[in-house]
């Protein structure tokens, strides 16, 4: 039922290999969705590890969340967690 903006829809992931953005491959999309639904440090670290294995390089996974500011009508994104995985 409609009740809060605080849901997985408002959370998103930014993944980096050094300075390059990394696209989460399709076979890991469910892991990504799980991190968005329940962004625990363990889940973020697990995804970072899986992505690092896939990319054969260290990968950083950042969990971001946007919130809506009523006064200004702006959507503002903030980083709430991050983890680094190594192959």
């Amino acid at each position, binding site marked *: 039922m409609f009740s809060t*903006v605080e849901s997985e829809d408002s959370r998103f992931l930014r993944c980096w290999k050094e300075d390059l953005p990394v696209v989460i491959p399709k076979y890991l999309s469910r892991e990504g969705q799980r991190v968005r639904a*329940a962004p625990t440090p363990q889940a973020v670290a697990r995804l970072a590890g899986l992505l690092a294995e896939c990319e054969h390089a260290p990968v950083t996974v950042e969990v971001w969340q946007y919130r809506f500011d009523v006064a200004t009508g702006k959507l503002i*994104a903030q980083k709430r967690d991050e983890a680094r995985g190594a192959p």
Partner: protein
Amino acid sequence: MNALTRAPLRYLREHRFQLPALAPPRVLPLLTMVQLLVGTADNGLLFAPLAAWFALGAALPRLLRTPLFWYVTATILGTGVYLTWESADNHRYLFVYWSLALCCAFSLPRAQQPLALAITSRWLIGLCMLLAAAWKIASPDYLSGSFFHYELLADERFAHFASWTSGLSLEQLTENRTLRESLVAGQLTGVELSQVQLHFTPTITAIAKVLTWWTLGIESLLTGLFLAAAVVRCRPRLVLVANLTLLLFAATTYAVAPVRGFGGVLMLLGLAQCESGQKKLRYVFLAAFVLMQLCPMPLMDLIVLLRLV
């Protein structure tokens, strides 16, 4: 005396066009099958075993009124929720509870089944509304009106309603959704944003406030009415008021935002708990259920389409 000497309407009522009573234990298994197939069609993992199991039920109708049938259905649905918890909508959980309710009701002697279905349905509606209202009260962004404010500006399901009531054009609302996407996925295209400005008007704030308090108010009212009807038996007038409130809730909620899964199952629960003398209300719930299947698009979309025609 032949038929022509009687009042035609009275004759038709007595002899031909008596509507069947829509006995819940008879119609609910079939309607629930429709609801579950429609509600899980987008999930192959769940849909395939469910469709196979329901095909068996359609071929062997007696199976539909056995506890085993609904126990297996609940197991399939529950397994689906367990395996896809990260994306399972909350009405999928309600599907599981409702299948378990049918399982329990059909394990009773036939004479007790209608009452068991009615009481279980009242508890389910009452508890759903209680949890929905409680979660809203516990969410600061809901009580401040910010939740509906944002939904009106950026949720596609509200687009026509928002455009119709606030004066924002559909293009501006589409652009709001594009801006949100650029915030979420811009990094992949080299445009890493930390904030975006949505189109909005001051009217939206007022509409959001109305929606916020209307929704909380009617959900709280439904909580009280259905929990009271579940606890206090033999109060047809209380059930009538509860039913009319549920229909008002459905009309005001699902005409604006088409959440067919939740809406459909609420209408089935409504039908299941009508008193034996409320035959017409059962038909109203059935009509609402059918309409929800026919109209996956909101009322506002229909109005816009009719205008175009």
